[in-house]
C-alpha cells in the first residue's frame, strides 16, 4: 500500500456542489482518491455518479455559476491546487495535468488545423517557435500511431474518423509530457474494435513516460483490463476502492457486486444477468446515510441514516459499506 507522501495526486474530502433551480446537489461528496506516478486509477460508476465532475474538479474546470468546489483538498505533488491562483492553475493545466475527453468528434475546433491545436499548448506555455511546434506536432502524431503524420498534420478535423481523432486528442494531451493524465471515458464514443487500440495506446504511453493516469469509465471491463487500482463511485461518493485484483476477487460493497452481476461474462457458462433493482439516486433528495441503501439487498434500517465513510477492511482495500460481511459474490 503506497504511503501518503508517494502519491502524485491525492484528493481529500472533495465536495463539489451545483446550485440548480430546484436546489443544490453535491456532485462530489467527500471524495478521497490517491494516484501514484506510473500507476492507473480507474473510477467506475454510472452516469450521474460524479466521476466526470471529479475530473473537471481536479483541473478546476467547474463552471462557476452554478458549480463550485466547497470543501476538500486536491494535493498534486505536494501542492493543494485549490490554493493556486487562476493564472498558476492555467500553467498546471497546460503542462503537468492534461485531460482526454469523451467525444473526439467535438473535442477539436472544426475550423482550425489539427496540428495547430495539438501544439497550441506548447507555444503558449513553453514559447516554442512555429517551426519547432510543427515538427513536434508531427512527432506526437507519429507516437500515437497516425500514419503519414507529415501530411496529416495540416488537415482539418472533419477529414478524420472518430478513432483517429481520439488519437489526435491523446497526442494533444501528451504534448508537454504531463505528469498526470485524466481520461474521461476515452473509449465510450468509439467502435468496439477501436476501443482496444486506444486503451493499448494509453497504456503504452504511460509506460514510456511513467505518468500517472486517472481513467474514468462506466465499463467495468475496460477498468479491469487497464487499471492498477479501482475506485467505485455512486451518487457522488466513493463506495469502494482497492487494487483491481482485490476488487474483482472479493468485492466489499453491494453496489460493486451489483455492477459485476450485471455484466455478461463471455467466458463462463451462461448465467442470468441480474440488474440492480430500484431507481438511480435523486441527488436533490438524498438521505443522510448510504445513498445506495434504497436499492441494497443487504441494507438494514441504520444504513440510510448513518453517514458513511471509507473504512479499511483489508490492507489497501477501503469500503463505505457498514456491513461488508453480508456480501458473498453472486448472492442476490
Amino acid at each position, binding site marked *: 500500500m503506497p504511503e501518503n507522501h508517494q502519491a502524485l495526486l491525492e484528493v481529500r474530502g472533495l465536495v463539489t456542489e451545483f446550485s440548480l433551480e430546484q436546489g443544490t446537489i453535491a456532485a462530489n461528496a467527500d471524495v478521497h482518491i490517491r494516484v501514484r506516478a506510473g500507476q492507473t486509477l480507474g473510477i467506475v460508476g454510472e452516469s450521474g455518479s460524479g466521476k466526470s465532475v471529479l475530473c473537471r474538479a481536479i483541473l478546476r*474546470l467547474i463552471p462557476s455559476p452554478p458549480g463550485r468546489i466547497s470543501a476538500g483538498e486536491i494535493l498534486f505533488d505536494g501542492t493543494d491546487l485549490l490554493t493556486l491562483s487562476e493564472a498558476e492553475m492555467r500553467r498546471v493545466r497546460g503542462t503537468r495535468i492534461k*485531460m482526454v*475527453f469523451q467525444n473526439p468528434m467535438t473535442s477539436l475546433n472544426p475550423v482550425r488545423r489539427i496540428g495547430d491545436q495539438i501544439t497550441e499548448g506548447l507555444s503558449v506555455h513553453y514559447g516554442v517557435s512555429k517551426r519547432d511546434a510543427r515538427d513536434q506536432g508531427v512527432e506526437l502524431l507519429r507516437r500515437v500511431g497516425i500514419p503519414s503524420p507529415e501530411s496529416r498534420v495540416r488537415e482539418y478535423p472533419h477529414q478524420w474518423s472518430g478513432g483517429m481523432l481520439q488519437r489526435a486528442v491523446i497526442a494533444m494531451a501528451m504534448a508537454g509530457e504531463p505528469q498526470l493524465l485524466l481520461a474521461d471515458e476515452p473509449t465510450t464514443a468509439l467502435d468496439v474494435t477501436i476501443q482496444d487500440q486506444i486503451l493499448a495506446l494509453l497504456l503504452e504511453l504511460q509506460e514510456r513516460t511513467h505518468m500517472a493516469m486517472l481513467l474514468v469509465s462506466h465499463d467495468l471491463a475496460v477498468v479491469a483490463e487497464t487499471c492498477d487500482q479501482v475506485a467505485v463511485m455512486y451518487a457522488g461518493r466513493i463506495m469502494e476502492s482497492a487494487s483491481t485484483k482485490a476488487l474483482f476477487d472479493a468485492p466489499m460493497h453491494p453496489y460493486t457486486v451489483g455492477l459485476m452481476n450485471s455484466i455478461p461474462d463471455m467466458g463462463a457458462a451462461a448465467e442470468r444477468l441480474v440488474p440492480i433493482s430500484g431507481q438511480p439516486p435523486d441527488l436533490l433528495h438524498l438521505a443522510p446515510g448510504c445513498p445506495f441503501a434504497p436499492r441494497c439487498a443487504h441494507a438494514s434500517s441504520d444504513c440510510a441514516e448513518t453517514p458513511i465513510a471509507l473504512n479499511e477492511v483489508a490492507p489497501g482495500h477501503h469500503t463505505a459499506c457498514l456491513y461488508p460481511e453480508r456480501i458473498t459474490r453472486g448472492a442476490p
Partner: protein
Amino acid sequence: MQFLAYILSRLVQMVPVLFLVVLIAFLAMELVPGDPIMLMLGGRANETMLAALHAEFGLDRPAITRFFSFIINALQGDLGTSIIQRQPVSVIVGERIEKTVFVIVYGAVLAVLVALPLAVIAAMKHDRPVDHVIRIGGMIGMSMPPFWLALLLILLFGLGLGWFPIGGYGEGFFGHLWHLFLPGLTIALFLSPILVASLRAAMLDVMGEDYIEVARSKGLSPRRIMFKHVLRNALIPAITVLSINIGWLLSGAVIVEYVFSIPGMGSLLVRSVGSRDYPVIQGLTVVFALFVMLTNLAADLSYMLVDRRVLRK
C-alpha cells in the same frame, strides 16, 4: 476545383431569382394605372410627342414582346432611357453606384467597429449587469429611426461642434471619408444593435461547445480562447447576419443619402418617384437587387475561406 464547383452552383441558383427580379422591374412601369408616358411628361404632353414616345417605348406592342426586349436589353446593359433627364438610365445610375457603395461600406465597417467590442464584452460577461445594459441599449438603438438619428447628428455636429460637414460627397478619398462620416455613423448606429445581438448569440453558442472546454483544459487564457477560438467560429454566423442585413444597409442608405444630400442611388430613387421617372425606377430596381444578390454570393464565398466544411456539400 471544389471552389469552382461551389461558385458555379451558386451562380446557377441565382438565375431564376434574377428572372423574377427583372420581371418585377418590368412590372414597375407596366402596372402604373393610366398612361405612364403622360405621367412622365406631366403637363407638357402634346399629340406628336406622345405618339413618338409611345412608339419608342414600344407601348403599341403586346406586353410579352416588350418584356423580352426589356430582358435582352438589360442583358446588354441597356436599361432604357429617361425622358425626364434625357440620358440613358445606365449612365444616370452608373455614376451614382460608387457613392452608394462608399456609404454602405463605410457604414458597415463602422458598424462592425462599434458592434464587435460590445458583443465580445456582452458574451464574456453574459447574464451580468453589463450584458443587460448592452441589450437594453440595443433595443433603444434599434428603435431610433435613421432619419431622426441623421438629423440629431446634424444638429450635434452642425450646430454644436461643427466637426463634420453635414452634406455632400466631398472631393478625393479623404474628402469622402470626412463628408461621409456622419452618414456612415448613422447607418452604423442603426445596424449595430442587430449585429451585437447576433454576434453575442453566435459567440455564446460557440462558448458552449466541447472544444472550448478542451481549450480551457490546455491552460489557455480566456483572452486567447476568445480571440483564437470563439471569434473565428462565431464569424460564420456573423457573416450570415451581415449579409442578411444588406437589405437594411441599403434601406438605411436611401434615407441617409436623402438627408445628407449625397448623390447616390438612394436619393435618386426618392427623386424619381416624385418626378415619376419610371425608366430610372426600373433600372434602379434591377441594380439594387443585383447588389443584394452579389453581396450574398460574396458572403457565401467567404464562408469557404473560413470554414472548409462547406465544400463537402
